[in-house]
């Protein structure tokens, strides 16, 4: 009787053993690194397609036309309708009148865009249909409504964070390249490749956005609602420490 049990036990030790443990371990490791992180994010599209290349290359605008420091040192990140309307100059009153005349419900944006109202169509500057439609969406849904476009900020920070672009204006990518190994967890090393651009936006923002035609989707965390790109506190602290800048709480919080 004892021998049979011993044999059974030996059999189970051999058969069970470490393998299921290893299988389980490796399976979740693979899942946990490759699959699950992606599930935490849902892709949200920007309100409409804004193409940097059309404006920068096509219209010859430079970065400062829309993204500049104001007189008081604050940074104008997203341009307001006032700026866009300098070229996308559709008079809201004229457009609303035309819509009313055409007998369309002012709240039915799809119908308005389909109707191809003269006041709006005359202003469209794009060539392709896709881009024309993007312009139409901007004008109908936002410009003539007097509403600012609710752009999704890839680097969105919560209200308790005070970030000053002015304080970081002096950072030079070429200089920082010397520290790229220490900064590897904060700044992707791809940023330091090639010729360093004049502005240092690439350090934190989407690389070479001025050459982008279709803005990438905003990856929203399903639990916290924040962007995947949102820089967490430890990254700010790491770079501050490496550059000898203060890490006092009030340096960044409000």
């Amino acid at each position: 009787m004892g021998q049979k049990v011993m044999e059974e036990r030996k059999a189970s030790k051999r058969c069970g053993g470490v393998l299921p443990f290893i299988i389980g371990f490796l399976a979740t490791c693979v899942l946990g690194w490759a699959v699950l992180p992606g599930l935490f994010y849902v892709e949200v599209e920007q309100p409409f397609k804004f193409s940097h290349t059309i404006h920068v290359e096509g219209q010859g605008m430079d970065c400062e036309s829309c993204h500049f420091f104001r007189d008081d040192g604050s940074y104008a990140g997203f341009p307001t309708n006032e700026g866009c309307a300098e070229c996308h100059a559709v008079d809201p009153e004229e457009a609303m009148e035309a819509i009313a005349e055409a007998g369309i419900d002012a709240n039915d944006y799809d119908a308005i865009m389909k109707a191809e109202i003269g006041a709006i169509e005359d202003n469209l500057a794009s060539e392709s249909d896709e881009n024309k439609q993007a312009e139409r969406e901007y004008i109908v849904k936002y410009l003539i409504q007097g509403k600012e476009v609710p752009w999704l900020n890839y680097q969105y920070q919560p209200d308790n964070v005070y970030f000053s672009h002015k304080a970081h204006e002096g950072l030079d990518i070429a200089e920082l390249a010397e520290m790229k190994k220490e900064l590897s967890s904060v700044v992707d090393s791809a940023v330091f490749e090639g010729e360093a651009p004049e502005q240092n936006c690439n350090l934190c923002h989407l690389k070479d956005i001025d050459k982008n035609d279709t803005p990438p989707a905003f990856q929203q965390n399903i639990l916290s609602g924040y962007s995947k790109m949102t820089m967490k506190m430890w990254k700010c602290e790491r770079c501050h420490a490496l550059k000898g800048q203060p890490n006092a709480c009030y340096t960044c919080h409000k």
Partner: protein
Amino acid sequence: MSVARRAFIQMSVGATVGILFTPTVWTALDDVSIWTQNWPWIPSLKYGEVKGVPTVSKMCESGCAVKVRTVAGEAFGTEGNMDNPLSGGGICPLCANGVQVMNSPTRIKAPMLNGKEISWDDANKLVSEKLAAAGSKVAVISGDQTGTVNEVFSGLLASQGSDAFYSMPSDMQAADKAWTGLMGGSGQIGYDMENADVVLLAGADALESWGPTVANMKAFANNENGKFIFAGPMQTRTASVTSKWVPVPAEGMAAFTLGITYYVLQAGKSVPAADFDQFKAMVISGYTPAKVEAATGVKADAMAEIAKQLLAADNPVVVPGGSVAANGAAFALNLLLGGAMKVLPEFGKAVETAMTRSEMLKQDILKGVSADVLMVYEANPFYALPEQVKGAFTVAFDSVETETTAAADLVLPTPHAYERADDLATPYGVASATYSLGVPVSKPTLNVMNAADFVLGLADLGFENFDEVLEAKVTAVGADMDELAEGAAYVLEESADVSGVTLAASVLGKAAVPVKGTGAVALAPYTLLNVGTANQATTPNAPCTISNNQLIGDNMVVMMASATAKKLGVGVGSKVKLSGGNGDCEALVQVFEGVLPGVVAAPLGMGHTVGDEFSKGKGDNVYKILTVSSEAAAGASTWAGSTVNVAKI
């Protein structure tokens, strides 16, 4: 234990350990911790360009020059306007909360007739009909002391053949009645408190509730070596920073002033006025220090000391508050002293048929108002003067719900001060004629219309809209529209002519005699800006600034000296009923040694029955118990000398 079960358990354990070696669990915990702080009802902030837009605020009767702070075009706060002499960078607690009042849910959203919404066109038709039927039986009550909108209302009255323009009771009115009514002067009195070396505030709570408070406070702060003396029945906030408090009962203020004048006359001062000899004789015989002490309780030594300081000063000024007689006595004293009292000329009119400011201040609202069509502009007479005001058909113009809009037949919402173009001309008390203009900061989101625009649609005064009226006014004033729109003020240094002015000797002697009511205790009502004025209730963020000396819970607090409390048989915390005037008020007692014995000090501005949760049902309405007595000699009514009976409950 079979192989399958053991394998399953081992695989699960492996999986559990494995997942811990991946970022999944840790980032999930981090995300969950952020999720726990994402409370959807906590508002998030808006960012954008921050600007300070200059404009004019009418939240108090005088009006002030402010800068409204906006972010991405949305107003969020108010600050002072350094470049404007009316503000000098500071603001009062009412304007500090202006944006919050503008965004309050008690804003009136559309024109209402007997509680039902109507269109502006229908309102215009209705009012036109009523006006046509009423003829000259039309009256206007205005709560705005300084705006050109008054000229528009006055023009309307003129076209109806009426002169029934009323302003809410104010020091400006009492001063005008004394100066132009009794003394034959013209223009408006001003006081250069910034450059005076001795300032006697004879009843004028200048640093809290008298005149253009912020401008007064700025003058006080800039006056490095000046000596300020406050005379009154109670130590108001003004008294907390003046060099001295002289306890003087409100009804005795005129006599007190004449008592000081006695010494000044004895020192040989004189004025080239037609009735100077008569005046001197009247004071020397009727207002000797002994007589004044007997009538008012103010010690002769105190008056002598003040007179000495005024005589020794290079540039003294007496600033009156209270009855017409008190104002007249102060002006006479100022003329004798020849100090920092100024007489300011009035600016030109925009609306030809409008009354002058002095004419607008002639009617005595305390005597009562009765009309077929009564228009009330941004004033709350149904709260402050409940018995005196009656109208067969009442039209109330205001931006927030008040007792008056609740009682009115037709309610026409006006834009908030920061949503409209408005102006202010020479608030009462400033040292030079000053004109300021404001442009809208925010776009109105409700169905509102500027009151002046509505009135211009009723009568043909030669203007299409209020903007045209303002342009005409700016031209009449002689100022530059662009500079004004940027927040600068237009200041005229000229003084008006004072020759031909009399000292009202025959009237003043009789009018200055203290007259008190029949109640057991004298009542000293006082106004605190953070508690609210007659026209503006306390603002949303102000209730936490209201101290336990004014309000405990929902109960108003009245203050009295310990001697008074002992006599009345009450102590700290006793509940009492004050009866007088048109009713009674309930209050709790607080012992405060800064009140004249025999006087109870009660805060005005509480006891609202209509309004938001911050003002409704708090305390009691002291306006109910004020008694109106007639200054027969001066031809005016006054609240000074109100008395009450106090009973413990």
